[in-house]
């Protein structure tokens, strides 16, 4: 495995472990990527703030729209700021992220579901007070 790796990597095959090389052309690209991220995130934030106070759309749809916009913005941050990509170096990071998202969803959905059920099944507060008397 490592032999064939060395044969096909002529550039840094003799580099010591820990040696880190950065391509000369990288920074311009990287600044561009951060700029795109900043632009998209700003746009999504502005839309979020605008939509929260507007009466142009049907009221009950606003929270849904806000959540969708937030998820989109988190995606923009992940891709353009944290540089989570589909590249081969990122497989482990993406797997960890997927697991994290699973836990977060379980925690949020589970808590809300259980507490909603509890609230639903609980006696109204004034009746409890009367029983305690």
């Amino acid at each position, binding site marked *: 495995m490592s032999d*064939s790796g060395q044969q096909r990597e002529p550039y840094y095959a003799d580099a010591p472990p820990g*040696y880190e090389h950065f391509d000369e052309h990288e920074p311009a690209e990287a*600044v561009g990527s951060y700029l795109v991220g900043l632009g998209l995130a700003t746009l999504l934030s502005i839309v*979020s703030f605008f939509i929260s106070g507007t009466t142009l759309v049907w009221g009950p749809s606003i929270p849904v729209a806000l959540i969708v916009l*937030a998820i989109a913005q988190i995606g923009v941050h992940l891709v353009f700021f*944290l540089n989570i990509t589909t590249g081969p170096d990122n497989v482990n990071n993406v797997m960890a992220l997927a697991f994290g998202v699973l836990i977060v969803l379980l925690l949020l959905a589970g808590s809300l579901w259980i507490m909603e059920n509890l609230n639903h099944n609980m006696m109204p507060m004034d009746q409890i007070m009367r029983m305690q008397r």
Partner: protein
Amino acid sequence: MSAFEAAVGHERDLPDRRYTAERTAGGLLSKRIIVGYGFWIFLLSDIVMFSAFFATYAVLVDATAGGPSGRELFNLRNVAIETACLLLSSFTCGLASIGARKHRGSWFFGAMAATCILGVAFLFIEVREFAGMVAQGAGPTRSAFLSAFFTLVGCHGLHVTAGLLWLMTMMAQVFAKGYRADILRRVLCFGLFWHTLDIIWVAIFTVVYLMGAGQ
């Protein structure tokens, strides 16, 4: 095929120089990638902790005990300024990490200083907001809703404070020790931390402030 093999194996099929740049001799993952991965796992655990606070807040948001609700308390203009501060600081933090990788002092220190100023501005607005709420009798002891609010938003504020201390430490270390490989890995971790704080802020301003003020 394991994820590790997938990461190492596919790489050899790509002749692109950019991919080989992240590797050391023998096809091993470079220390930079391993450190980033480890720190990413820590950040995900931090996000899981925040999601518990978010769940608490969502459960308690209507438990105002006759006290003020979010609609009466939140000032969206302040929140918009805070959002702009954190978003811009995330951008300058990205510029600083590029400057560090390119060993450009003016770029790195300038962008880090800008990040620091924006972070301090964010904290200042947040502390002023908290102080104003406590002064009008809407402190964390007023209702379950306010307890959850101060826990969630205050925890994020504490993270930003810790991030600012770390930021200044990194500036001092780069200044004193130069662009050594281990220092650069710490700068990388700091960048990941700072960007993650911005991600959590996106969730906070949406769930707490925008949905709270509009309900």
